[in-house]
């Protein structure tokens, strides 16, 4: 027993991550499988699954950013309103200022970068609590959105419309409709962007020095500093990346809805937090996984779809079940981790 102890200690952080990831993926597949078996029609076609991706491409990107920040032990609640600000700015640029799609993308990235630099600086170098900084960021973005433009309008720019209409066909996944015509399955452009981001972040977090230092800083700030990790820079980069991803996510959201409105993406930050938690990222930092986050988003929207197809149409049922689901996941997580660490503690004693 004594010989194996150091090894279990060394990989303790990673096993937490993997165990939570495992739970998430199993629960998602069980849930989806149950939906296919018991609810049938709405879930059986592959396109139903792709539609979940289409609807949630932006949320996947936002949740990835949220997970990054949460792994370093912080939080960013400005994501939702930042998305609305990006949508509104791009919409105004395209329709009222004669902008091109390129300039709109630049605006989205610019807004994300600007927020990231300011928030990252305040959090990392001035040691202000991330919650307060991003709360201010949230208020600021919310106010700025209405200052930029206060009404909802659809964008008519033809180049943008063309971009919005792009459908990428997925081979072999189509279905034959009632008239015997083959309808190919498709995903939108945003989904490709989102999946690329998930892949890149997965590699960064697992196999680069920067990625490992995210876990180190979130797991134990003091130990990370003693190991020579530049904690301030790591935190700064995490917040910068998060806001930049919010910029990208904002544009993807804009591409999906094609309009600007102050009420876009309200509560997206809470959905992103929920998705990250369901995906096994812990707010205490140091534990988390991007693939888990992806499955977190998918689980969240699957449960929403299940609730609607059960005929519980009233708006409150969705919220109540989502809350219930977060609750269940949290309790499972806490029980798993408590039991494991409790057992370890007992072993040491």
């Amino acid at each position, binding site marked *: 027993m004594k010989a194996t102890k150091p090894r279990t200690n060394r990989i303790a952080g990673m096993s937490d991550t993997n165990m939570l990831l495992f739970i998430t993926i199993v629960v998602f597949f069980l849930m989806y499988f149950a939906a296919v078996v018991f609810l049938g029609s709405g879930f059986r076609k592959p396109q139903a699954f792709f539609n979940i991706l289409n609807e949630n491409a932006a949320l996947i990107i936002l949740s990835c950013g949220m997970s990054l920040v949460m792994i370093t032990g912080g*939080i960013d609640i400005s994501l939702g309103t930042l998305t609305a600000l990006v949508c509104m700015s791009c919409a105004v640029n395209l329709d009222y200022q004669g902008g091109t799609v390129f300039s709109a993308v630049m605006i989205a990235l610019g807004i994300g970068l600007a927020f990231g630099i300011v928030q990252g600086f*305040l959090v990392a*170098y*001035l*040691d*202000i*609590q991330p*919650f*307060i*900084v991003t*709360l*201010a*960021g*949230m*208020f*600021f973005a*919310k*106010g*700025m959105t*209405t*200052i930029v433009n*206060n009404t909802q309008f659809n964008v008519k720019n033809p180049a943008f419309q063309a971009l919005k209409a792009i459908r990428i066909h997925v081979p072999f996944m189509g279905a034959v409709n009632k008239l015997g015509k083959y309808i190919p399955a498709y995903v939108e452009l945003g989904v490709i962007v989102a999946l690329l981001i998930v892949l890149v972040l997965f590699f960064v977090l697992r196999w680069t020095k920067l990625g490992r230092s995210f876990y180190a800083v979130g797991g134990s700030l003091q130990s990370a500093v003693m190991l020579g990790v530049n904690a301030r820079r790591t935190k700064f980069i995490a917040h910068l990346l998060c806001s930049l991803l919010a910029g990208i996510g904002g544009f993807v959201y804009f591409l999906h809805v094609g309009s600007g409105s*102050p009420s876009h993406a309200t509560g997206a930050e*809470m959905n992103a*937090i*929920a998705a990250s*938690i369901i995906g096994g990222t*812990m*707010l*205490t930092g140091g534990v988390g996984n991007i693939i888990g986050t992806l499955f977190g988003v998918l689980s969240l929207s699957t449960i929403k779809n299940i609730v609607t197809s059960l005929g519980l149409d*009233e*708006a*409150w*049922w*969705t*919220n*109540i079940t*989502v*809350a*219930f689901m*977060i*609750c269940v996941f*949290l*309790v499972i997580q*806490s*029980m798993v981790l*408590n039991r494991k660490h409790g057992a370890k503690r007992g072993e040491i004693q």
Partner: protein
Amino acid sequence: MKGKNPFRKANKQIFIPLAALLGLVLFNLIADPSFFRIVLSRNSVGYPVLSGYLITILDNASELVILAIGMTLVTASSGGQDISVGAAIAISGSVVLKVLCGTNSRPETLQAPIIVAFLVSCVVAMFFGAFNGVLVAYFNIQPMVATLILYTAGRSIAAWINNNELPIISDPVFGYYGNYIPGIPIPTPVFIAILCMIIIKIVLKHTNLGLYSQSVGINASASRLNGINPKTIKLLTYVILGLCVAVAGFIKVSRFSTINYSVIAKDIEMDAILAVALGGNSLAGGKFNMAASILGAYVIQFLTTTLYKFNVSSSALPAYKAVVVIILVVLSTPTVRKLLAKAKEAIMRTFLRKPAATENGEVAK
């Protein structure tokens, strides 16, 4: 000697909201002194009432002050914040209306005494507080995440309680608690807020609640070894916050005699957390200063009212608020304080050196 030290530290902490308040007062004095005018006029019902921006601030800050009291305790003991208070206010307000209205959504007479409705809403709000508290204390879930559950579901539950109808109460007596009692020129919520402050002052002075919640927040395992049960203390603070929520919710529904589930007390949780932070309390738990939090709540309302006075639209308001908050928080960070102290020193030095330099110059000549 020992008694003096914490007092001095407390004074230092209350300096942040006090400085912010002074800054706002000065700004208003310069911009428009009529901000501070208070007039005795007659309201729409014909009773004499005091009106003016200062009264508005005191009146509207009441709910925030009451929430800040509970939020300070929760922050101190659990090192996290409850983000579900806005949703919980919707629930408790909905319960009040449900009890008062019964099955009919627009009753001619009240179906139950107001005090009964209030007590029922207290029980319900304390139950939801206990739900949050159990998740935080017994399941070791981060407070913000644990309360995210109620934040997501709260407004839906509130709508569900009243079957998504919007009950309206026509009895004027119900409106007394959120507006004016006939003959008294000061809004009732001000008195309720003062009452809450007195109660919490007495509780903190004569019980160990303050001491225990601080020690649990500073080091939970050390306090457990000292015979305090951290779980019970955390749960207790969440239940107290639930009680605060019930009072605030009662005032909120009394103001309009009706409820709007998606709008009532929207974003108030952010303001309440901000009040705690403005009071110089660490959001990571531990020591707290109740007076500073309460003052912080008034500062936030002062800021909001000032912005409204300068015709900032309510939707653009958050942007200005954010800028002010960031300036305040940045100024209060140790790094910036050190820089300011250094700058002050440098200025002093240059002023002191200048005459020396001229002296040297004269000598050289």
